[in-house]
């Protein structure tokens, strides 16, 4: 088992595991966001639970941070290594003849997602950490009522931010269109029993980012 991360397959496997973990997280994030469309109270309750539960805050959140950082850093490491494997580029290369744009440009869609993630952290995560752990207000209240739903709606008032989020989710969809099935291939799941995964992967890659876009637009137009 020692030195598995020093091998090409080991690195692929680790990259795929972090991707699968992040895809599960994305589903959970989407499910909570979706609640904000149907019930402000439920969204507030769940947000408060997620924001104050010690297991989520001090066990799951650090694991998530590690997963995010690992996925991005390993992505760049692999890209650098792969570029070194060909010193001279082809004068004419017809990549579109044998592979999808998404599969050839994971590093660029990943970079846009990274930029989006930084904006998203500045919008939601850092203010949350500031309120809870720097100011020390764990109540989740503002003017006598839960603040989470109100804060969410406020963020999506400016159209430029909604547009920015929509662009970010389009890149997420492009990344997932290759990434979902690629992760399963990397962990060795490609045989006659896993053929159905391809269709499911495409549906996941389109529907989840589309769902996030719909939620952002919903709050923009229903403020």
């Amino acid at each position: 088992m020692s030195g598995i991360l020093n091998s090409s397959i080991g690195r692929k496997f680790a990259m795929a595991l972090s991707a699968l973990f992040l895809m599960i997280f994305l589903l959970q994030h989407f499910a909570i966001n979706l609640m904000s469309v149907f019930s402000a109270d439920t969204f507030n309750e769940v947000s408060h639970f997620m924001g104050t539960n010690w297991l989520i805050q001090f066990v799951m959140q650090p694991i998530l941070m590690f997963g995010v950082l690992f996925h991005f850093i390993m992505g760049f490491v692999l890209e650098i290594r792969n570029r070194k494997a060909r010193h001279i580029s082809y004068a004419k290369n017809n990549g579109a003849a044998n592979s999808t744009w998404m599969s050839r440009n994971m590093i660029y869609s990943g970079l846009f997602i990274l930029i989006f993630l930084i904006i998203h952290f500045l919008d939601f995560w850092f203010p949350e950490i500031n309120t809870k752990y720097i100011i020390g207000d764990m109540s989740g209240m503002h003017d006598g009522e839960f603040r989470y739903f109100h804060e969410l709606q406020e963020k999506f008032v400016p159209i430029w931010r909604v547009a920015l989020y929509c662009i970010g989710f389009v890149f997420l969809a492009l990344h997932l269109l290759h990434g979902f099935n690629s992760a399963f291939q990397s962990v060795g799941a490609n045989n006659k029993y896993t053929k159905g995964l391809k269709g499911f992967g495409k549906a996941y890659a389109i529907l989840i980012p589309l769902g996030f876009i719909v939620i952002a637009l919903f709050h923009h137009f229903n403020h």
Partner: protein
Amino acid sequence: MNLTLKIWRQKNAKDKGGLVDYKVNDVSPDMSFLEMLDVLNEDLINKDEEPVAFDHDCREGICGMCSLYINGEAHGPDRGVTTCQLHMRMFKDGDTIYIEPFRAAAFPVIKDLIVDRTSFDRIQHAGGFISVNTSGNTIDANAIPINKHDADTAFDAATCIGCGACVASCKNSSAMLFVSAKVSQFALLPQGKIEATDRVLNMVKQMDDEGFGNCTNTGACEVECPKGISLENIARMNREYLKASLKG
């Protein structure tokens, strides 16, 4: 057909090299691509110029010797064929055709369009074999019952001719389709199970040491492979490797 060729010329491994333009006239659509290059070379020899060096051997699509990156694809625009089986009818009169060597750090150019693919041999030496007792009591392979599906899948993997089109087509110059085919053809058979752990670990280590890139599952290798080696082999090799790593 009259064609313009843009061919990579490079005197030796140390030379910088570059594309040179050539004209070939009266090319028959029924010629193979290599025959068209033969016509060009004959013309160059008649003009006392250095002919273009390119690899070829059987010219029947089974030896894996001919390479060439033609108009941005390994073995050209046709599917399921090597360059020797690519016919000029795939091109149009007046076309400009780019002809380049397979590009990879692990496939250094020797001269013009010829690259050194001995890195594949070294990967094979690292584990692409089975040990059989030949002292006189060798068991006939046909005497060992093998599941039909496994036998067919192993045979499909064994049709890999080691041409290197997978490496040339991969944006990362990954050799995983080749290595996975060589791992799979033994992993599926009882004769290959005995050395399965060492085989996959040693072959993958050699592949990494040779400087091939990491697979990012674009699938370009599978599309360009003249023998239709499936990506399922890479998934199988990944499973074999993880199993072997946990054991070892």
